[in-house]
């Protein structure tokens, strides 16, 4: 993996074509999170804060081991804890590492109006560029995972960067380096997908988790972060992981048909009044002195 991974294939709010669009690269990166072997130790939370020099927040006890209710502008990666009783009465303490999913079809990028505020590199990493961000928070509307978070002082949006600064130098992301159980893996998308499927098969065949599977949602084109879940039919048990995440219909409507309609209406209006003037001209007033 080289600095070539920083070539860009999609840019938010951008007029005209993106130079890197449409080129095919083999090395889509992928982070694999095996929730079945996570112990909720939070080494990944700490590693992310330390690598990215994020300041601490004051937290309060809220009847859970979960550090805070959701990610924040200065807390990009959070273990979601859920005491889950299944329909058959069995009990599990589920732990899921929650962070940006680095979607292949990112809703945040589609919704963002600010040129260059969100970019997608050819290796699949979706990155916010705060210099260009205007803090409008449309990205929050576009994201089905509730990831982008607002800093009310600087008025910028923040999220997990998949350690693009480390990845571009051939290093694994900080969270993966810190994980003590080896439940986090990093590599090419195909390799990680194969590893995940192998693990899910192992779970289905050798454990009681007959519905184990891999979470790589097609509704957003697949993601740069995939999960192995004990029960692929119930992702919501894992701290609200959406069942079938998609870029919201409203974003598609807005950037698609509504924009075309609007453009036609405005341009049409201007053309219309021009034609009217050419045909009918101004009104004349009899005896009107100027």
């Amino acid at each position: 993996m080289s600095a070539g991974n920083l070539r860009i294939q999609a840019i938010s709010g951008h007029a005209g074509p993106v130079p890197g669009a449409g080129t095919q690269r083999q090395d889509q990166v992928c982070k694999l999170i095996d929730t079945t072997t996570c112990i909720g130790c939070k080494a990944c939370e700490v590693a992310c804060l330390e690598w990215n020099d994020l300041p601490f927040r004051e937290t309060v006890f809220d009847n859970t081991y979960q550090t805070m209710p959701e990610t924040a502008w200065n807390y990009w990666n959070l273990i979601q804890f859920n005491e889950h009783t299944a329909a058959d009465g069995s009990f599990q303490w589920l732990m899921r590492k929650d962070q940006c999913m680095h979607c292949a079809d990112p809703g945040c990028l589609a919704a963002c109006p600010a040129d260059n505020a969100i970019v997608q590199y050819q290796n699949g990493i979706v990155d916010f560029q705060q210099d260009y961000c205007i803090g409008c928070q449309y990205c929050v509307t576009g994201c089905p995972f509730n990831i982008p978070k607002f800093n009310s002082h600087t008025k910028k949006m923040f999220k997990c960067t998949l350690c693009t600064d480390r990845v571009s130098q051939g290093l694994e992301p900080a969270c993966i380096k810190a994980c003590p159980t080896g439940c986090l893996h990093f590599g090419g998308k195909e390799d990680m997908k194969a590893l995940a499927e192998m693990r899910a098969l192992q779970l289905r065949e050798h454990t009681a988790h007959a519905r184990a599977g891999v979470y790589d949602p097609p509704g957003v084109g697949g993601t740069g972060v995939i999960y192995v879940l004990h029960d692929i039919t119930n992702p919501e048990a894992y701290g609200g992981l959406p069942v079938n995440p998609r870029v919201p219909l409203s974003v598609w409507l807005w950037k698609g048909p509504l924009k075309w309609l609007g453009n036609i209406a405005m341009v049409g209006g201007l053309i219309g009044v021009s034609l009217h003037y050419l045909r009918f001209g101004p009104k004349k007033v009899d005896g009107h002195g100027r």
Partner: protein
Amino acid sequence: MDDNILRYTLLERVMHWAAAVTYVYVLLTGLAFYSPHLYWIAMVLGGAPTSRFWHPWIAVLFMAVVAWMLRAWLGDMQITGADRAWGKAVHLYIANHDDGLPPIDRFNIGQKHFFWTMLYAGCVLLLSGIVLWLPEKLPWSLRAVRSAAILLHVSAALVTIGAFIIHVYMGTAVVRGGFTSIIRGEVSPAWARTHHRLWYYRVTNK
């Protein structure tokens, strides 16, 4: 000229231009956020984050002026029987056969529709705009409100843009003397008789 009639007081002209200037600013910055091809407008107007900051404030100012207008022109903007009669003959107005039109008061039905459109669409813009201004106050569970706000905001804005195009066109290109009246405040008796005869009779006590 001595027999010119005062159509718009100083206060009314100030109201109008305050609304116009604030609307144009909001329109331009809004267009920048609407289309990547027009994003450069935000750069020209002081940068994108600056535009994002001022757009809602100037918009609130616009709505305040509109509220002021509402108070001043509520009576004048009521749609009457005379307006409806004129409306039925609007094809004559469009084709500049104004002599065939029935008489109307201070504002024609087009102008009144323009006023109410800007007011109602403005309200939709204001309410949806507040959601877009402070989205961090809205919890994740209410994200449907955010989606709805975006669609409503854009749609209402397009409606006002359409109305604005017609308004500016009519006032500058079509109705000669109209633009002068909203700057200097005066119109000639002939102009008044032609375009707003009932108003002319009313203000000259004829």
